[in-house]
């Protein structure tokens, strides 16, 4: 090893700086918010004069917060299912099909990842107003689905590309019909890709706020939207509590997915 970490002081110093930077501007604010959510001051004084669970009680007592969490879960659940199913079919065609325009199609499916979200939100808003999907659950799911599909297609395509087609051929020669081979051999073999697709799709919808703000109606609000609109009125510790819960849920889901992935790969 030419680069021996302990020998090159300069490197170490740089790495320490970057770590400090990221910790400072990423972890510290999050910890700060988490601390405030347990702080007894209503005015977000730091360090808090005392500790309390009051804001969490307020949060769970307010049906509007629970309702928005429920909307978030429903939308994200529907998006996840659709995204994995459609992502699988699209990936199979994109990976295995030989047809003209394949690359263009792949680019089209990936586009939502790179388009400015604010433009997409504005455009979807204007478009949905016109075709009457504005403020509906279906519109919400479809808008998030378009955002989630790229993640799903990338995860599943990668898994399919890492899967040797000969294994499917072997299953067919073993006597399985082509569809049986796909179901009993290919799908289990790419299950880590399907799982990643599901986790990413869920998180994309669950955490998304810009498009959601435009899609939301007073009766149809996701959790991030609720945090946003509440914040517009008042920076209360309840928001800190909701934010903390959202982070815990997200990080928990990612950790769980890592564990499941390891188990799937054995």
């Amino acid at each position, binding site marked *: 090893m030419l680069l021996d970490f302990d020998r090159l002081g300069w490197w170490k110093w740089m790495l320490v700086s970057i770590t400090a930077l990221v910790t400072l501007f990423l972890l510290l604010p999050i910890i700060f918010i988490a601390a405030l959510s347990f702080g007894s001051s209503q005015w977000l004084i730091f360090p808090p004069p005392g500790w309390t669970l009051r804001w969490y009680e307020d949060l769970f007592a307010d049906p509007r917060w629970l309702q928005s969490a429920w909307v978030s879960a429903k939308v994200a659940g529907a998006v996840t299912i659709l995204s994995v199913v459609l992502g699988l079919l699209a990936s199979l065609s994109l990976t295995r099909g030989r047809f003209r325009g394949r690359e263009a199609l792949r680019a089209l499916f990936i586009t939502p990842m790179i388009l400015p979200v604010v433009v997409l939100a504005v455009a979807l808003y204007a478009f949905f107003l016109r075709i009457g999907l504005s403020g509906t659950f279906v519109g919400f799911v479809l808008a998030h689905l378009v955002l989630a599909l790229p993640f799903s297609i990338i995860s599943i395509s990668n898994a399919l590309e890492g899967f*040797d087609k000969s294994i499917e*051929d072997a299953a*067919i*020669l073993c*006597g*399985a*019909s082509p569809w049986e081979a796909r179901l009993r051999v290919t799908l*289990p073999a790419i299950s880590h890709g399907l799982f990643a697709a599901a986790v990413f799709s869920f998180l994309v919808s669950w955490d998304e706020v810009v498009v959601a703000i435009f899609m939301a109606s007073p009766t149809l609000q996701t959790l991030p939207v609720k945090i946003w609109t509440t914040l517009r009125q008042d920076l209360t510790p309840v928001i800190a509590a909701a934010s903390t819960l959202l982070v815990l849920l997200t990080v928990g889901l990612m950790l769980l997915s890592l564990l499941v992935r390891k188990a799937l790969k054995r």
Partner: protein
Amino acid sequence: MTAPFLQIRNIRKQYGDVVAVRDVELDIAKGEFMTFLGPSGSGKSTTLYILAGLQEPTSGDILLEGRTLLDTPSHKRNIGMVFQRYTLFPHLSVGENVAFPLRVRRKPKAEIDATVSRALKLVRLEGFADRMPAKMSGGQQQRVALARALAYDPPVLLMDEPLSALDKKLREEIQFEIKRIHQETGVTILYVTHDQEEALRLSDRIAVFSQGEIDQVGTGTELYAEPRTRFVAEFIGDSDFLKGRVERAGDGRADIRLGNGFMVSAVPTHGDAGPGRDVALMLRPERISLFRAEKPRSLAATVRDVTFLGNNTHVQAETETREQVAIRLPFGHESAAGLQSGNAVWLGFDPSSARAFC
């Protein structure tokens, strides 16, 4: 039944203008170990894939016990296959992998269990049933693939360079296992390889493929002793070629004059060897004698390189017409002693051991 067990009838595979397999015709007997030998792109694997049903021929037919196979989709052909790449199902254990073809056929559990343990015993992997494929070496994986392909007693087993990803030592070990399994089960095997040594080691008969066609079919000894084309002579064993011209021909033999006027009489010929034709005279390196002093009826040459290779010594010599000849002397041969680059030598050979190709 009078018809051969497996008949390949005029199989042709074309992709646009490119002909991958050109009217291949071959009969295979029941229980035979037949090897398709050839360089990559010679059509040997494509022919195997057509047999497996993974590719469709442009024209031609495949008959198994007199009935065509082409109407049957792959998964109903009941043919076993071991692939070049590792194709164990990664999410299933070794035992479940071997059980897969039986599960698909909805066999009773007791029968499945018995067959799996018999198949694993056949490939000497008893006790590995619960192991996951990822935890096994390449050689073990290919042995499991073999067990899986044999679990449902297929009449024909196809093997597509199953050992090409393994290193030499392991390859030889598994070649030995395959030979044993062939003897124990009596299954008809079609084996594809580009490795002549592997082909010679394993096969009852070898079909040498070149540019989509079969050049020659025969036992290893036949192909080595009586190659019918220059390609077969080059592909099986080492060979030297000298340019010459036919002086007199007849009866499958010809007198040939080499570049510097040296005459070789009564050489067996292949192809249309009329007088005046240019031919390539083929010699086997180990059938050439090397003398340190001039001898009658021997070819003058100069040593260019001497390499000791363990059990024999390779000598590279150059004739007066600047053609390269390789000679192989066994270890300890007296004429190898002290031989070095620049020495003048004389090469002798029995014309009946040479062959001429037009």
